[in-house]
């Protein structure tokens, strides 16, 4: 008996179709099977092979047609499943996800099991609207999307705050909620340190160091880079600190940000002074000016991690910076420069800060550089300027390979620094991508009897899929000197060219205890105390990390309403919410 399956407007390379034909023909109970595009000529071939059916005639040239000869009708479903799997890109690729899919909010909310968070990664223009929809549906929001106007951010965060909800982002690259990794994140041990940060790779560096020091982080809340701006007023950071303060499992609260506007910093510090748990604060970029009881002010990311670990162990903070010693170099007089090519923005900022504070060269302002002076340059290749139309350097090695090659040939280069940020969202094996170039340039320098040091650091944990030790080993075998942290790497680089990073020595100041209201909405506590149930709007790959951690996720395959007409969408949005709040 012949059965016909037609997949309309579907294509595959011929090799896939041929393999599929073979696979289907080899199935038990299938006498014969053939898979072809439904062109008239191919229909003749089907007929010639005694596989002609009336349904075959309805297929068009752009459809894939499968004709199966079997005596067992139940085989047809099996064949159909095999075909779908193969056409979806081969077995085991897309069928692993147990997640369910929806195409609108109603369906997504129906499918989800008590959802409490929306993970949004659609384009910025639409992200704000969907974030608002999520908040109206009582969901916390994690916004990976960037290009969201600042005024929208202010409005959304205010709305969230009023509803007892949290907006993480926009442009939030990293988060860990109740040990569930969100977006670009490492797998970190659970523990009693609570982190809130306005910088993605800053959170990654601090949480991974904490993990490697044997402690853990259950919640690392990303706020988005603009949260501490005057306009936004740190709404997300303040609410997050309060939530971590109320969480009985959190022993230490760690806060990471760039130096904010003065009045915002005062607001944050005032809250931190109101709570009783020990706090580590890092406003990366500025040298801390004092220490105070209850708040440890750190200078670098590693120091932040070490201080957090020591406080969680009930110890006094004692940070001893380290550098790698014993690297033999004999630089030519013109070799004075440190060249750093980062994929992590905060790591680049940290390097820039330490070089600037130590080497005292006049800074040359240039948009393409995190820091540039006569001898040195630090570039964040993940900056918008370099990623326009290109994948992020955590995924694509091309730009770094190019920079490695040009800087190695430059006469003034003494030391090159690189980061390799692993974890969810990053390249499966960046070390192997960079290794051949590192080997080539170090070999070349050696053959010319010229000293050239390539320093590298891996941001990750042994639980990350890429393998922390493996990534280090590959880079080491290629000729790089491996540093444990970015802090150690920058100190090593500076020492190689004759400098020494001074660790700020600070006097202790005392302040009055703050009087901030520390109450928190139950929804906030529920967010950080339970596995999130996520509605993922946008990039499907984000579901993987969530599912691997045992949390539930519904994929919302988002399409713009009103044909993507932004103006019309805004009108609809207004009308929907207008009715929703007044009826």
């Amino acid at each position, binding site marked *: 008996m012949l059965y016909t399956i037609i997949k309309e*407007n579907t294509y595959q390379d011929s090799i896939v179709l041929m393999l599929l034909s073979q696979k289907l023909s080899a199935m038990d109970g299938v006498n014969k099977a053939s898979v072809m595009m439904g*062109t008239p*000529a*191919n229909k003749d071939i089907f007929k010639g092979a005694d596989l002609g059916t009336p349904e075959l005639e309805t297929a068009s040239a752009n459809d894939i047609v499968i004709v199966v000869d079997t005596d067992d009708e139940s085989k047809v479903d099996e064949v159909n499943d095999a075909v779908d799997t193969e056409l979806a890109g081969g077995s085991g690729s897309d069928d692993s996800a147990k997640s369910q899919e929806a195409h609108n909010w109603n369906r997504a909310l129906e499918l989800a099991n008590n959802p409490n968070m929306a993970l949004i990664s659609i*384009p910025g223009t639409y992200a704000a609207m969907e974030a608002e929809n999520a908040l109206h549906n009582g969901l916390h929001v994690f916004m990976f999307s960037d290009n969201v106007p600042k005024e929208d951010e202010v409005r959304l965060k205010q709305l969230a705050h009023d509803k007892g909800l949290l907006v993480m982002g926009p442009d939030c690259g990293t988060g860990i909620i109740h040990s569930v990794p969100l977006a670009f994140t490492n797998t970190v041990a659970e523990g009693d340190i609570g982190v809130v940060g306005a910088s993605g790779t800053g959170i990654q560096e601090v949480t991974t160091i904490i993990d490697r020091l044997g402690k853990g982080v259950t919640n690392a809340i990303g706020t988005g880079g603009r949260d501490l701006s005057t306009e936004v007023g740190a709404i997300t950071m303040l609410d997050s600190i309060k939530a971590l303060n109320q969480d009985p499992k959190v022993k230490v609260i760690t806060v990471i940000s760039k130096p904010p506007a003065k009045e915002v910093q005062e607001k944050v510090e005032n809250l931190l002074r109101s709570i009783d748990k020990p706090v580590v604060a890092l406003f990366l970029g500025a040298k801390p000016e004092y220490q105070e009881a209850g708040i440890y002010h750190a200078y670098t990311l590693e120091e932040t991690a070490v201080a957090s670990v020591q406080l969680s162990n009930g110890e006094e903070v004692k940070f001893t910076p380290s550098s790698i010693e014993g690297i033999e170099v004999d630089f030519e007089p013109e070799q004075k420069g440190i060249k750093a090519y980062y994929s992590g923005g905060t790591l680049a900022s940290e390097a820039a800060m330490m070089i600037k504070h130590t080497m005292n060269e006049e800074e040359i302002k240039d948009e393409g550089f995190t820091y540039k002076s006569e001898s040195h340059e630090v570039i964040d290749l993940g900056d918008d300027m370099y990623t*326009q139309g*290109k994948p992020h350097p955590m995924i694509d090695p091309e730009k770094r390979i190019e920079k490695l090659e040009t800087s190695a040939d430059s006469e003034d280069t003494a030391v090159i620094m690189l980061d390799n940020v692993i974890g969810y969202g990053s390249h499966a094996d960046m070390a192997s991508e960079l290794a051949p170039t590192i080997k080539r340039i170090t070999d070349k320098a050696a053959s010319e009897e010229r000293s050239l040091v390539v320093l590298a650091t891996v941001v990750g944990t042994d639980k990350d899929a890429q393998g922390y030790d493996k990534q280090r080993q590959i880079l080491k075998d290629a000729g790089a000197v491996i540093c444990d942290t970015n802090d150690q790497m920058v100190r090593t680089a500076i020492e190689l060219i004759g400098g020494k990073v001074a660790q700020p020595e600070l006097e202790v100041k005392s302040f009055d205890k703050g009087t901030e209201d520390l109450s928190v909405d139950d929804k906030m506590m529920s967010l950080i105390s339970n596995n999130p149930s996520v509605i993922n709007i*946008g990039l499907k790959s984000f579901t993987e990390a969530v599912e691997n951690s045992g949390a539930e996720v519904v994929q919302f395959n988002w399409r*713009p309403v009103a044909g993507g007409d932004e103006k019309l969408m805004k009108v609809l949005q207004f009308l929907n919410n207008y009715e929703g709040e007044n009826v």
Partner: protein
Amino acid sequence: MIYEASAIGEIALSLLKNNQRMRVHSIFTNGFNIVNDNNDLIFIGTDKNGYFPFGITINKYTMHHIRESLQTGDLLKTDTGAINHHDFMLNLKHAETFIYNKVSTQNTAAVKHAVKHYDFSDYNSGDFSSDILSRIITDLGNSEAAFPLGYLVGRGQGLTPSGDDMITGILYVHCLEPFIAGKHLETLSSYIRENVTTIVSESFIRLALDGIFSRRITDIGDSPGTDSMDALLELGSSSGRDTLYGIYMTLNRR
């Protein structure tokens, strides 16, 4: 997200100039097709299959990301500067426009000599034996013969069925040394618009009828030899070989 295209073919550019909206027709591992209402097609994908006159080239990382958000039927707003999807924008402003090469007719003897070194005897066991192909090619020169290409169009596996790739090869040789009766060319031109083969194949044949071929094919005439022919062989899973077989059979016709 904004992605960048590295190259764009001349035909693709002129289609974008004249169409504000196109839709996603089909999606593969290494690329996807978009079409306008007339089914004129642009292939957007990696350079795995070479550069096409109706192609836009992106790198594999971009393709990987685009695949995540792309579905058949999605609408795209297009102009010569960018292709806009609701999840991403593909920027074309920095893409290198590549002009299709005119077929160079100076080296036909060298092409004929070089292609002789390839063995196509395995075709004899299938639908495209040398006997069948020889008869078709001979009939193409005879305006009295019944339309000979009906057998080849749309026959065989894949995105561009093998028979169509052979036709492309035959038409390439026709450009080098015209031999096909005008009547058959006209019939082919109208026949392929009747939904007799895949839309991608239809685009290739339409352009081949206008003397426009993808770079890997024109390279053969520009620098005849095993290098250019080996490069053609790598095209697709069997497309390149099918095309070269069409060239071989036509150049060695009696």
